[in-house]
């Protein structure tokens, strides 16, 4: 059976990490499959949003240590892994992580890369790289501190200790907590709620949100206004407003 299961729920694409024997460890092959799937979803106008999930007990428990152990300095310098992560990060439609159980190391970094994280009440988030004599290498030190703040991020990265779903929600890493048995379908319904909106508006809004992490507030506001202006030229914006005024459901075309 494939290590990445792909299923569809109307306009929502579900990617399920499926390497139970390796606790869904993210080796290069699996990360590449995720990148491939997202790139196909990018081209597919019938996909409005994507969720990534694992099993009830583990989202992804890290990177593949065997794979990493084989790489010396020279090999690490030329590792293709950062490029695979960049391909995943380039996905421009809404991406939701539905996390049950362990999201550790690269698993936590994958969740942090997603636009929204929803968690089962058994979820655990952590970056234990430090306990192995290394450190997060795929955004862990950058994206975590931006969502949970300095103290907690530093504590997690330097001790390697993880936090539970409640703590992750309080800190801002997680938006919603659900009972484990319902996490995936609630994530799908959240994705479906996004996917029914105009694809161009979703893409522009996501881009603006992403850019807020990159630039100053005034530059961010300018870029936001530019994207806002761009949408004014779309059919979907006319349709959205017309449908609202006529009290009917809009029919977006992605134009």
């Amino acid at each position, binding site marked *: 059976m494939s290590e990445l299961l792909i299923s569809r729920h109307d306009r929502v694409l579900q990617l399920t990490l499926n390497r139970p024997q390796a606790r869904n460890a993210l080796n290069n092959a699996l990360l590449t499959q995720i990148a491939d799937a997202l790139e196909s979803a990018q081209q597919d106008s019938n996909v409005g949003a994507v969720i990534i999930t694992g099993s009830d007990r583990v989202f992804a428990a890290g990177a593949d240590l065997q794979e990493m152990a084989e790489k010396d300095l020279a090999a690490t310098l030329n590792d293709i892994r950062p490029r695979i992560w960049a391909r995943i990060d380039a996905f421009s439609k809404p991406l939701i992580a539905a996390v049950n159980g362990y999201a550790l190391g690269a698993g936590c970094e994958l969740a942090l890369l997603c636009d929204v994280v929803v968690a089962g009440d058994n979820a655990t988030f952590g970056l234990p790289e430090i306990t192995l004599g290394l450190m997060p290498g795929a955004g862990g030190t950058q994206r975590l501190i931006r969502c949970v703040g300095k103290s907690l991020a530093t504590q997690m990265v330097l001790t390697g200790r993880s936090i539970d779903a409640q703590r992750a929600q309080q800190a801002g890493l997680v938006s919603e907590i*659900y*009972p484990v*048995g*319902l996490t995936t379908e609630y994530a799908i319904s959240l994705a479906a709620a996004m996917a029914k909106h105009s694809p161009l508006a979703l893409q522009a809004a996501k881009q603006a949100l992403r850019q807020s992490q990159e630039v100053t507030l005034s530059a961010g506001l300018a870029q936001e206004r530019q994207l806002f202006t761009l949408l004014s030229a779309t059919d979907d914006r006319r349709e959205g407003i017309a449908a609202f005024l006529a009290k009917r459901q809009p029919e977006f075309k992605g134009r």
Partner: protein
Amino acid sequence: MDAFILSHVEHGVMTLTLNRPDRLNSFNEVMHGQLAECLTQAERDDAIRCLVITGAGRGFCAGQDLNDRNVDPSGPPPDLGYSVETFWNPLVRRLATLPKPVICAVNGVAAGAGATLALGCDIVVAARSANFVMAFSKLGLIPDCGGTWVLPRVAGRARAMGLALLGDKLSAEQAQQWGMIWQVVDDAQLSDTANQLARHFSTQPTYGLGLIKQAINAAETNGLDAQLDLERDYQRMAGRSADYREGVSAFLAKRQPQFTGK
């Protein structure tokens, strides 16, 4: 090695007997370890659908064995937080989250952590001669093993304060009158009563019972809004269980349901 915990599994019921009768079944580290192993089995084995905890001999449990702690008055102060964090807290958490009913059959004195452990179980049945002693205050300590959380919830604030601050003996009958425990029975009836309850639970829709337990535990800290949402979620899950289907079809066919616990 001494068997400080006697474990017996039969007809879907796991009966755990605290077994250091010469020390009123008070806990040392080895005993904690043995109990933890039994709980791992109870958590993993779907065939176990109810847990009964009771004590051997004349007492139920006298809590922490003080001989097992560093109490040398001239030595450095002991770290009591260690045994709380390492042994008692995980025990309380595991019993509270075990998705099956936990019955405590209090056969005699329950003192200190033994009392608060018993009161934290889902269904508490006590022998008429049993009693509960929040002995902590007399040693300068606080009720642990969930004591300060569970006491005000089962007894109300005023009685919780009185019990915890005075540390006096509370009879099983008084505990029942105050609504702190489910039932008091004559000493000779205790074991039969607990077993009968356990056998009943072992034939019931265990998955649903587990959800009821989690929901009621969550209600202790949730507001109405959060609890209503949780009820919706748990009902959604319960409605998908095999036992719900079986319950409905048995009702419609006017026959006895055969629940599998799933």
